[in-house]
């Protein structure tokens, strides 16, 4: 069985981002870039399935500038077998990304596609769902547990107010939630092995995909700064403020 996982290059979650002074976007100059953390969880899950003998090959796919090779190498060091980069300098949006992934699904015929539930840059949470729709596959989003059976997968989903267990027919698209697993660190021997693993570079044109943005960003602004808090002397004062000032209790 083949698994396809995605790895988006995003600003590292530890970086406190800065909005450009012309409000056109976020300053990416000299900023540390990493694999989207939810994608890391996807890679980890695929690698664990492989280690458990349920999967033969893990393919990692990234769509973005040539710099995304870095993230592919990181995933190869975490245990993926080979990489595919769809290289484009266009700022790709969820629909374009989903179309690219669909094209790779057609080409590679994986039995399972695991993506992050969202990328921490745009926080759109659209790609996995769009891929499933475009490819006509079952989907199980926000997974906190995946069990592979013969030709189905049993997935526990994190939903408002609890957990939902569903069974989907393979091939299926699963998107990862935070509690699915805890990704490992890349070990040095695996970083060395990653160097020798193949990475195929394609372009959207090669796949016949039009990645032209459909949505235009008008303005990016930083969130309002939080006001400093206050310290109240007594529980009574706190209750009074919550009741009468914040009006969050009555």
């Amino acid at each position, binding site marked *: 069985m083949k698994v396809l996982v995605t790895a988006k290059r995003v600003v590292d979650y530890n970086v406190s981002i800065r909005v450009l002074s012309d409000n056109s976007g976020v300053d990416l100059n000299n900023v540390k870039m990493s694999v989207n953390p939810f994608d890391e969880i996807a890679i980890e899950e695929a690698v664990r399935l492989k280690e458990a003998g349920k999967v033969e090959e893990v393919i990692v796919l990234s769509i973005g500038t040539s710099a995304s090779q*870095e993230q592919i190498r990181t995933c190869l060091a975490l245990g993926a077998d080979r990489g595919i980069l769809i290289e484009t300098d266009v700022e790709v949006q969820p629909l374009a990304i989903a179309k690219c992934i669909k094209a790779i699904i057609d080409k590679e015929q994986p039995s399972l596609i695991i993506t992050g539930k969202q990328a921490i840059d745009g926080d759109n949470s659209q790609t996995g769902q769009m891929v499933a729709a475009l490819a006509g596959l079952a989907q199980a989003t926000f997974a906190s547990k995946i069990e592979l059976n013969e030709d189905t997968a049993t997935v526990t989903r994190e939903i408002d107010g609890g957990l939902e267990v569903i069974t989907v027919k393979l091939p299926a698209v699963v998107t990862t939630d935070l509690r699915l697993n805890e990704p490992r660190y*890349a070990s040095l*021997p695996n*970083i*060395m092995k990653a160097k020798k693993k193949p990475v195929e570079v394609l372009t959207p044109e090669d796949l016949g995909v039009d990645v032209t943005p459909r949505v235009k960003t008008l303005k990016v602004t930083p969130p309002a700064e939080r006001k400093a808090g206050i310290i109240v002397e007594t529980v009574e004062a706190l209750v009074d403020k919550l009741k009468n000032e914040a009006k969050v209790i009555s």
Partner: protein
Amino acid sequence: MNFEYSSQQVSIQQAIEKICASFDADYWLARDRDGVFPNEFVAAITAGGWLGIAMPEAYGGAGLGITETAIMAHTIARSGAGMTGASAVHLNLFGPNPIVVFGTEDQKQRFLPPLIQGQDRACFGVTEPDAGLNTTQLVTRAVRDGDHYVINGRKLWTTTAQTANKILLIVRTTALADCKKPTEGLSLFYTDLNRESIEVRGIEKMGRKAVDSNALFIDNLIVPIEDRIGEEGLGWKYLLHGLNPERILIAAEAVGLGQAALARASQYAKERVVFNRSIGKNQGIQHPLAVNWMELEAAQLMVQKAASLYDAGKPCGAEANSAKYLAAEAGLSACQRAVLTHGGMGYAKEYHVERYLREIMIPVIAPISQELIKSFIAEQVLGQDKSY
């Protein structure tokens, strides 16, 4: 000329950052307090295969260069692990290099895999109480007796000798009086740190409490010939081979620690409000931090230059020494400034920067002093008369 890390180098940096993220400032503060060796940290580094970064692939290492090793050392120090984290693994990284370059096949088979797997821990016995920076004046003696040597003498500052089971030892095999030059008659051994013949006494010191440095009293230590690296009498040449990488690594650590201090200072300057505004709004506070940044970046470039020359097999003495000098100056200046930026809190342990200031003194002092680097550059690069 390329100033960017390759994707593999980025992977190395990020993997080390991830390991270090599990050992936060409070962990290192606690080690500074209790003086317990950071075993958990070393175990995590060992488990990732990192001790073998610069060791040949044939013996289980990764076969990478000093460039990558310096990235690793820099990343450890910069995470806030400082010299405590860096020194805890430092010696295993490049210390065994004389074995790699000058050892026999049998020695490599015997010595390298256990070092890479973390079963063996090595320490480095060069400095002596009566020789100082004039290393060739060392007096610890090895006398040949059939198939072994008998060693007697003293070593000073030997780091990690409390936990190490192996020691790389440079000693005299021919008395100074019988040598044409002081650099002759020295030999290198890599052998068991036999505690029946070596008394290890910890030195109470200014910082890096959790990684011990010691005085060694060596009394009739028996060392088999098989543990001599290379030929008898050529130890100095073998030792010199490792000096440049050693300086590059320590420089990378100094830059990393300076950057850790600067990050804390910048954060504090933004947050601390006095006279109704953050102290960082004053140029008197922000300008020195900007200077620290520039100095650290420049030192880092020299580290990278020295490392890439070494990896390319080119002479790098001037660059490696300059890197050590510049990194120590930049690191010291940043750590000092970080304490000052914190005002009174800079003196409180819980703000961490006073610990950094105590630790940054190590790369200023060792493995070679700033004075001797200046003498070296004046002599070797500028053609001045030898002054020492």
